[in-house]
């Protein structure tokens, strides 16, 4: 993919049975987590119709999908955008294991038994000396190694994005040094640092205040015609988008979680400046075919 080419990414939400529109509707339709085989097929169809990347939360399900895409030779045509951590699973795990201390122990155990010596060393250093940055590095190294072992050497892990909950909590707490350490860690590994946020104008304002170069990072944020999840307002998000130095925004929720028809959603996105690309989830073969053909025609 050239730097001018738009990123047209297949999103993984439908593969986990996620609907931000209406959970009840999703249940009535009988939506469930897609099997890795069918999900990989949908990604392949999207690629045949113009998709050039896959955006996914790093989880056992998506790693299985990547494994199949690798075996089928599809993965080498894709730029991979991993989101860490898979917050839903960790929140559920925290509920089941008695809160944050229980969750921390479970993650530490996973990292220890992963056999990733760099991650284990950094993690031990982090725990013994109570160094949050060492712990973050250990965790990131562990997640990157999981993706790489699923896809092999031919794959391009172009970007690792911090999950929205983590990005926005760290923004709320003004953890500028943590953002900087994250950016440096990723850039050192030749991976674009990314941030999934629900507070796009707030993030841009903070990054400017903290001298974090917006040219070095990728920001994934909701952009859609009806202003769904565009905080604090559609107008403010559009204004800040126009002020960016270069296209470095991945528009997500472009269909407003299924509220909009693809044609009207794409019309709106096509008129916005500084959009690097879009991520759209698909749950049916017809969707994969039609949606990415439309995105390719209108946004490439």
């Amino acid at each position, binding site marked *: 993919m050239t730097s001018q080419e738009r990123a047209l990414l297949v999103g993984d939400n439908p593969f986990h049975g996620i609907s931000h529109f209406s*959970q*009840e509707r999703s249940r009535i339709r009988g939506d469930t987590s897609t099997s890795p085989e069918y999900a990989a097929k949908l990604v392949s169809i999207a690629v045949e119709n113009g998709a050039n990347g896959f955006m996914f939360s790093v989880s056992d399900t998506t790693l299985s999908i990547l494994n199949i895409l690798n075996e089928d030779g599809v993965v080498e045509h894709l730029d991979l955008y991993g989101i860490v951590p898979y917050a839903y699973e960790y929140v559920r795990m*925290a509920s*089941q294991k*008695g809160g*944050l201390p229980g969750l921390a122990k479970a993650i530490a155990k996973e990292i220890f038994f992963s056999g990733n010596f760099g991650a284990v060393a950094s993690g031990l250093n982090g725990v013994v000396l109570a160094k949050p940055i060492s712990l973050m590095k250990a965790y990131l190294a562990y997640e990157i190694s999981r993706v790489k072992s699923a896809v092999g050497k031919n794959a391009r892990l172009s970007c690792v994005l911090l999950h929205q909950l983590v990005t926005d909590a760290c923004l709320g707490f003004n953890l500028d040094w943590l953002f900087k350490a994250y950016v440096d860690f990723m850039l050192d590994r030749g991976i674009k640092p990314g941030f999934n946020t629900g*507070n796009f104008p*707030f993030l841009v304002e903070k990054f400017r205040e903290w001298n974090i170069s917006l040219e070095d990072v990728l920001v994934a944020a909701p952009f859609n015609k009806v202003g769904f999840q565009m*905080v604090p307002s559609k107008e403010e998000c559009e204004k800040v988008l126009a002020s960016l130095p270069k296209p470095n925004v991945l528009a997500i929720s472009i269909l407003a979680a299924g509220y909009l028809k693809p044609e009207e959603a794409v019309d709106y996105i096509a008129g916005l400046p500084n959009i690097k690309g879009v991520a759209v989830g698909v749950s049916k073969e017809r969707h994969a075919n039609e949606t990415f053909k439309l995105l390719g025609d209108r946004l490439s």
Partner: protein
Amino acid sequence: MLKLGVDKLKLTVVGFGKMGILHAGILNALPKVQLVAVCEKSGLIRKFMKKLFRDVSVVDDVGELSDLGLDAVYVTTPISYHFAVVKSIYNLKVASNVFVEKPLASNYGEARELCDLARRLGGVNMVGYMRRFSVTFRKAKELLSQGVIDEPVSFSAYACSSDFYGIDKNSKVSTPKVGVLRDLGCHAVDLALWFFGDFKVKNAKIDSLFGEGSEDSAFFEVETQSGVGGKFDVSWCVDGYRMPEVGFTVEGSKGVMRVNDDELEIRLNGGERFRWFRHDLKDNVGFWLGAPEYYREDECFLKSLIDGKNVEPDFFSSAKVDLVIDEVKAKAKRK
């Protein structure tokens, strides 16, 4: 007296689990607020918090918060600690304004005692029944008050999640000791009290799926003072509820209302149908962390501090939720 625009509200959070992180993150992002301290029992979490938050005091005991001149305290500990923590906050005069995550207490006796303390010591108090700040439930309340479906005749409510769905009964996973009614069902009870007023429990059934003492699903029937019959279904072991969900179907003489976290629908007897999703109900807020309703709830509490006015849901209305849950447990035991 706090002068808005000159001083910042000085707040603290007691209990730094997921709800503590969520409220502290929202509060700290607000320009008129300063998070000055965090109180947490876990040594491991405290150790890291001291490194993470450079301008925030990290303590392990509520007593250490007494000298900080706090405007308000957020209590986000596990439910079983609410009573002791809130009591200490009042008795040690840590702050007179208190926000407690839902539910207020582990039983009605404790809730009543906290209400007595709050009444005696004054200040603003609030309980985190955040669904009252969800756009769909707010619209439902507005339409019910306007009599769009006329007076309610009956209702059914559910509060479900998949948090413990598909888990082997012999696994080491432990469900919260307070049980599903206080952890999740309290939202449905609170909304029902808000929509329909006080009610009495007629009969109840509680099931344990993860061993003795575990309370994992509940079904109960109620009747309001005006004779409206209601049914509640509560469980954290149901498939298809990736996110916890609360919903109501309300039958009135002019039509039916269905509302849950995502949508609201009215079907009138004449065949007319109206539908609203979050998208249609101005769901945007100033800072989004978790869900928009948390921001609105925090904003409402802070506004009431500045204005020095009471706010809903306060301790007194929330204690009624604890009373209903105690009644459900008592009726279920008698069976």
